[in-house]
């Protein structure tokens, strides 16, 4: 019983096909990490300045950019099928709808 021969004759794609082909280099990861560290410094610095009501907006904007860096490169979202990004987008938009509709009960009455 030659398994490798069976595999060759099989109509389905060999297992290697379903792996992502991109091997991301160490230096690209390190650059991403440096970007994340820089944004951490930025958020700590901005928190020290009295920005009034903008403080929460700056903090959340920087956190969102950091999350995008983690999602795209560390979590390989950039290299996955498009359907993965659609799924993540739907999940995030759903959460934003939840949180904004909640505020209709508290902020505008």
């Amino acid at each position, binding site marked *: 019983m030659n398994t490798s021969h069976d595999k060759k004759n099989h109509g389905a794609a060999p297992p290697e096909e379903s792996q992502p082909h991109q091997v991301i280099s160490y230096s690209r990861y390190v650059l991403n990490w440096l970007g994340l560290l820089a944004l951490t410094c930025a958020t700590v610095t901005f928190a020290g300045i009295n920005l009034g009501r903008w*403080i929460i907006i700056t903090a959340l904007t920087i956190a969102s950019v950091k999350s995008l860096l983690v999602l795209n490169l560390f979590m390989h979202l950039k290299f996955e099928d498009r359907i993965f990004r659609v799924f*993540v987008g739907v999940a995030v938009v759903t959460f934003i709808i939840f949180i904004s509709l*909640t*505020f209709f009960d508290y902020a505008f009455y």
Partner: protein
Amino acid sequence: MKAVVIEHRHRDDVGSRMGLWLFLFSELILFGGMFIIYAVYRFKHPLEFRLAAEELDPFIGTVNTIILLTSSLTVAMSITAVQEGRKNLSLALLGVTFILAVVFLVNKYFEWSHKISLGIYPQSPDLINKPPGEILYFGLYYVMTGLHALHVIIGMAVLAVMGVYVAQGKINQHSYVRLEAGGLYWHLVDIIWIFLFPLFYLIQ
């Protein structure tokens, strides 16, 4: 012979990763609910949240942020190492990740025990006499960072198992989707902290 048979079994790595992503969305709902509670109470008690946050040390928060970001880097690099067939490098990187996670938890331990020694813990006599906004802030602080720390512990267990698989050769150059799944979970834990950090430590 047995190993050869396992390697040639039909696999769907894209499907496996998608399954893990779907699980991550359930985590988004779990933590998202808490973030909504946080948002509403912070909106209702802005000054009390600010006062309560002064008890937290932004330095420890920053150090823990850097630790988690670095651990995300080492997990990501360990996958590249496996893809290149560098088993020992991958194991070393997973080891570093594990150690960073331990350091994160040690920091958390000192932080929590300092708070508890100051009499700030749920239902403590000191806390119960504070204004409602501060009680809510510390309640959310303990629940959200506690649940996050639990995720760190689970992530460490997952990565430890993946490390054993790498050592045994079950995760190798041709089959590494399990390590990718463990990594995805670890990065999610990192993303949650990316939001917890400014929301609890950086309110001036």
